[in-house]
């Protein structure tokens, strides 16, 4: 059964699954508890502009996606504070403009765009080792940032006004948090693709949240669940020859339904 693991691309795929789970377990937890799912969706789609830029300049699109998604995150989170438009309007604009920019950049690029689909829909089976290194570095940045600033992230997620009263620089740390979302989007792009990134950022944490009220446990559980579910999805996609990104998302979705039912049945009062 494990014979498929002997291929280099399969080994890479499983390493990618692990790296991805770390990013979504840690950052996804904040995405879910601070309810920034929509802005995270915006950041992931705007990142497509960065992918297009990579094609245009002829460099690894993952590298250009990093600054692009960070800048769009800051614009989405910051613009609404400066200009008098609501945050969700800013998100909607950046979301679509980012994608449009990506398409224009690709139009302008010489030749045609190979494996463009892998960025849109994910292609965990073709993650090169060099991308794994980038993903690892981004994971490390995420982990160290959260270790350093978990108190601030917790404070602004729980009660933004009180966070300000105790002297937390709310706006600054909100931007840092969005920056982490941007980095995890980049980690995730190759695996599930821009369109489905949000599934990995939300579902593992949303499942775990039903079973623990401790933030650290929530992160650890989300990482573990992410690893099991993405690897499971990967294996199923290999078995049935299906698109890996979509299979992983379906597995996550089913897991969420099962977990919710389980949680509900656990809560049912026992009838005599």
């Amino acid at each position, binding site marked *: 059964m494990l014979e498929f693991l002997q291929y280099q691309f399969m080994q890479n795929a499983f390493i990618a699954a692990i790296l991805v789970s770390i990013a979504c377990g840690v950052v996804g937890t904040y995405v879910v508890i601070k309810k920034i799912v929509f802005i995270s969706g915006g950041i992931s789609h705007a990142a497509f502009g960065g992918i297009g830029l990579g094609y245009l300049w002829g460099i690894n699109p993952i590298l250009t996606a990093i600054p692009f998604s960070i800048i769009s995150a800051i614009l989405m989170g910051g613009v609404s504070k400066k200009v008098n438009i609501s945050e969700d309007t800013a998100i909607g604009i950046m979301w679509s403009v980012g994608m449009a920019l990506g398409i224009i950049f690709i139009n302008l690029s010489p030749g045609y765009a190979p494996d463009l689909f892998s960025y849109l829909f994910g292609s965990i089976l073709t993650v090169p080792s060099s991308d794994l290194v980038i993903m690892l570095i981004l994971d490390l940045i995420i982990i160290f940032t959260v270790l350093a600033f978990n108190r601030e992230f917790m404070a602004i997620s729980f009660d933004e006004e009180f966070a300000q009263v105790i002297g937390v620089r709310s706006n600054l740390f909100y931007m840092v948090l969005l920056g982490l979302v941007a980095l995890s989007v980049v980690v995730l792009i190759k695996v599930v693709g821009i369109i489905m990134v949000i599934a990995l950022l939300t579902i593992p944490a949303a499942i775990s*949240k039903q079973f623990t009220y401790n933030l650290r446990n929530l992160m650890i559980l989300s990482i573990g669940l992410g690893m099991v579910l993405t690897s499971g999805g990967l294996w199923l996609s290999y078995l049935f020859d299906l698109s890996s990104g979509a299979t992983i998302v379906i597995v996550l979705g089913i897991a969420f339904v099962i977990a919710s039912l389980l949680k509900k049945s656990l809560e049912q009062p026992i009838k005599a």
Partner: protein
Amino acid sequence: MAKNAVVMEGIFYEINGIKILEDINLTIKENDFLAIIGPNGGGKSTLLKIIMGLLKPQKGTVKVFGHLPHESLHKIGYLPQITHFETDFPINVFETVLMGRYHGPLHNYSKDDEKSVLKSLQNVNMLDYKEQQIGELSGGQLQRVLIARALTREPQILLLDEPTASIDPQMQKNFYELLSKLRNEMAVVMVSHDIGVVSSYVETIACLNRRLFSHGPVETAKKGLEEAYKCPIDLIAHGIPHRVLREH
């Protein structure tokens, strides 16, 4: 001579052209025990937020212990008015109160911080609930936890926005007794609708309805209060009959 905790001079605050506060001049001494009363929408919460620098007035100056509000935040304990709270947030009572001890980026909480948290929880009778998830508390219990969160900052001024709103009578009594003790160590400012109870504990009352109507010792303020309330009237809507004032 007691020092000034808060000095507000000529404060004007408006949102989208609508005047919320007009020409507020208010001095709070470091040992004052002040109640701010006034109708809904009178600007009470806004006033507290201006003291903390959460809102910036268009005109006027605010000094807190001689400094700008944001420079004095470490001296302020704040209980927000509870309007709505995230209930399934992954945090327990202890962690919630511990946040009040925040020292700045990269500073871990110390043993002293933890001791102070336990003491504050003890003060509001919530020590037994320290492991409880915040969403599993009743409204009144939550309010007590948030009072502990303000107390654990060991503030020099305590700003309480309707602290007794959902607290039962027994606990209210305990709470006022706690405040009477605390007021020797800090200035206490509380927003309240319950003039009847408040006037038997606090020293000064200010009535706020866009403008500051009367501000002074309870005894002399009573007359002014009545006057002030004749114009806002709202108080009757709070279910507090006028005679309550006369009875005192």
